[in-house]
């Protein structure tokens, strides 16, 4: 029970944290682009948009940072057995993240916020790029650490039964890391683009600040179109990699209990859980699963039952099948929404090309609603990858059920879970109202800040 609660807490706080992380990754990059455009063209429109979206970025960074602290502490607090076991490998990227990414990000964001009238234009521009680089580095080290849990490499188990690092290069070229990292960075960019596009669409629909927000809609779409196209193939390739190292994960995502060759993909299905192993597939698409999981037309996919007996032979008795429902639907939420976003992006690109973007009310309205989709996709993605690893916390090495802190009681976790959930509700509410208020009314403030020349006002 304590173990289950600790899992609930980790899942809740991680999913919540990752609402803000991709916004930060995406917006930091896009704000840097806007400021570069201002630096290059000297067009004041770009300056006000830099300040406007810069403030949205800062509101969001604040909550991303504080929720990140929980993540850093939680391994030791709730998962001390895990921490003892993996610290020698898993801890290293976290420490490197601190030294290489956090100092960079936090110092240069301070310089950027307060440096508008202190620093030369070029240096000030470099500051926001340093912030963006910090967010990308931070994601890199987290993905190095997480990928090691999915596919442990470059380690040995020492005489005390702890994992110790033996090859740092191996954990940096871990294929799960390379593709997973690309996937997360693109997800961040897509999230930032959709937020920027949604806010711009809101103003364009109202007919306010049309020229400025037309520019930002254009920037957002210009980044979004290639990002979503590449993302679909990166996601696909990640599936192939995972099928190689974690076949359970992919078989469960398809609710594929029996072996198949070639394998079809069901658009959706009824049943498919452990009690109904031959689900009613609605609209099966022949060969598609083979292509997705193996990258070949007739590739075989090993079914969950076969995999489970293989695992039992290797690791002893037990159930090694992850939650099929979560796997099946998180995969589909991600894939289907991404396809819709691809269509939206192409539509937007076409409207831009015909210069009809500002007048297409239907497109602009859909863009408003599309802001919700990256958050759903990001959550689905982490559910797919983390729940798909279960029952392992480190694939093949340690089970989640054995990894929690023996000294932390169920009562203590109830307290912490309640406190975190309540705090997160308050923080989330405040963040949302601030973001919405500022999105609606912030232009006047951004204009005032952009026009400032003489005595600087107080930033905080």
């Amino acid at each position: 029970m304590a173990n289950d609660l600790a899992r609930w807490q980790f899942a809740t706080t991680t999913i919540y944290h990752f609402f803000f992380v991709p916004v930060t990754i995406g917006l930091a990059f896009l704000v840097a682009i806007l400021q570069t455009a201002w630096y290059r063209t000297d067009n004041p429109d770009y300056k006000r948009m830099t300040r406007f979206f810069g403030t949205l970025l800062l509101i969001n960074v604040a909550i991303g940072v504080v929720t990140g602290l929980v993540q850093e502490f939680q391994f030791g607090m709730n998962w001390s057995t895990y921490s003892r076991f993996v610290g020698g490998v898993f801890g290293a990227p976290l420490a490197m993240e601190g030294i290489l990414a956090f100092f960079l990000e936090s110092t240069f964001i301070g310089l950027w916020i307060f440096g508008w009238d202190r620093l030369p234009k070029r240096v000030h521009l470099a500051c926001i790029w340093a912030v963006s680089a910090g967010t990308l580095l931070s994601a890199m080290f987290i993905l190095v650490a997480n990928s090691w849990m999915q596919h442990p490499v470059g380690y040995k188990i020492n005489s005390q039964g702890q994992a110790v690092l033996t090859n740092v290069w191996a954990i940096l070229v871990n294929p799960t890391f390379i593709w997973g990292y690309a996937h997360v960075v693109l997800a961040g960019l897509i999230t930032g683009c959709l937020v920027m596009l949604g806010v711009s669409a809101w103003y364009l629909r109202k007919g306010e600040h049309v020229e400025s927000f037309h520019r930002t809609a254009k920037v957002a779409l210009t980044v979004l179109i290639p990002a979503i196209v590449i993302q679909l193939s990166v996601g696909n390739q990640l599936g192939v990699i995972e099928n190689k190292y974690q076949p359970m994960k992919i078989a469960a995502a398809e609710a594929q209990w029996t072996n198949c060759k070639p394998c079809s993909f069901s658009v959706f299905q009824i049943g498919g859980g452990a009690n109904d192993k031959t689900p009613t597939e609605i609209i099966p698409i022949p060969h598609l699963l083979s292509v997705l999981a193996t990258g070949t037309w007739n590739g075989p996919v090993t079914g969950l039952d076969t995999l489970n007996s293989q695992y039992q032979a290797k690791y002893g008795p037990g159930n090694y099948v992850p939650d099929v429902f979560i796997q099946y639907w998180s995969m589909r939420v991600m894939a289907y929404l991404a396809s819709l976003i691809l269509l939206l992006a192409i539509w937007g690109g076409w409207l831009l090309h015909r210069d009809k973007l500002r007048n297409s009310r239907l497109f602009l309205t859909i863009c408003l609603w599309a802001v919700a989709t990256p958050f759903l996709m990001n959550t689905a993605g982490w559910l797919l990858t983390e729940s798909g690893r279960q029952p392992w916390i480190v694939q093949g090495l340690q089970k989640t059920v054995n990894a929690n802190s023996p000294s932390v009681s169920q009562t203590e976790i109830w307290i912490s879970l309640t406190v975190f959930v309540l705090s997160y509700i308050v923080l989330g509410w405040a963040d949302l109202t601030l973001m919405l208020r500022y999105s609606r009314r912030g232009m006047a403030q951004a204009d005032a800040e952009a026009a400032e020349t003489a005595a600087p006002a107080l930033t905080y």
Partner: protein
Amino acid sequence: MALHTIWFILITILWVGFFVLEGFDFGVGALHMLIGRTETERRVVINTIGPWWDGNEVWLIVAGASMFAAFPNWYATMFSALYLALVVLLVALFGRGVSFEWRGKRDSSRWRSGWSWALTIGSILIPLLVGVALGDLLHGLPINSQHEFTGNFFSLLTGYGLMTGVTLVVLCLLHGATFLALRTTGELRDRAHATASRLGIVAIVVNIAWVIWTLVVIGGGTVPEPTQIFGVIAVIFAQRLATTQNDAWAFVASGFGIAAAIGQIFIALYPNVMVSSTNHAYNLTVNNSAAGHYGLVVMTVVAVLFFPIVLLYLGWSFAVFRRRISAPPTSSG
């Protein structure tokens, strides 16, 4: 020198860096309603730490992550033992962290005073709790042969731990006041001087009492360590220099006072990293807590290559904003 000793020193430096840097912004946060009387003044006070507080907080994260990486057993035992205390610490960090960015974003006095209180309470609670935690490392907590904590929340509230927490809070308040005297002008600066001068007396007394208690906890000799003597002198100097309005040196002295306080805890701790009050045979030490040799080599290379760069741009960011801050003449706050 063995690599695990180098990492123990590095982690000590990270904790010292955290308290010397974030120490002044804790002090400023805790004093901002007292020294800033009007809304504009409060904003001036908060803006004195504006560019840096976030970077200062990173030292805490890096210290924690370095413990995880270099001494997994230490991190695992300490963080699971301090469970509920860390939950409170995290909530304080939430409130304080977002208060900076969010406080000024709505023009409502209720909104602002709410975040002002979050900032004040957080700025006191965080050094208090971290102080209790560091004090407990040295005092000892019930830990069994498996390096698992066997106590409960109340076992964490050791007298020495609490005293360490209170001492650090007082030192942070003094450090914040000397910082404000250095960074402001006019009335604010006068109030900062007065506060530093009065707080300084309290800090001198509390610091000496705590140093004596530390000697008792360590046991053995009654002769104070050089770091301890240095710390006591530094705090006395900070008070004197603040009273005589020697802003820069007062700030340097209060910084050394905090550095010595954190430093002496870790010096007294070594080669232990966490003492077991159950049985000293169960102490966690640099030897039995450390990660593998190769992992430490890799991290040492990363730290040696990149930490100097970090220090360079940190120094630059302090230099960029070195000017004193005063209220803009027309600001409505």
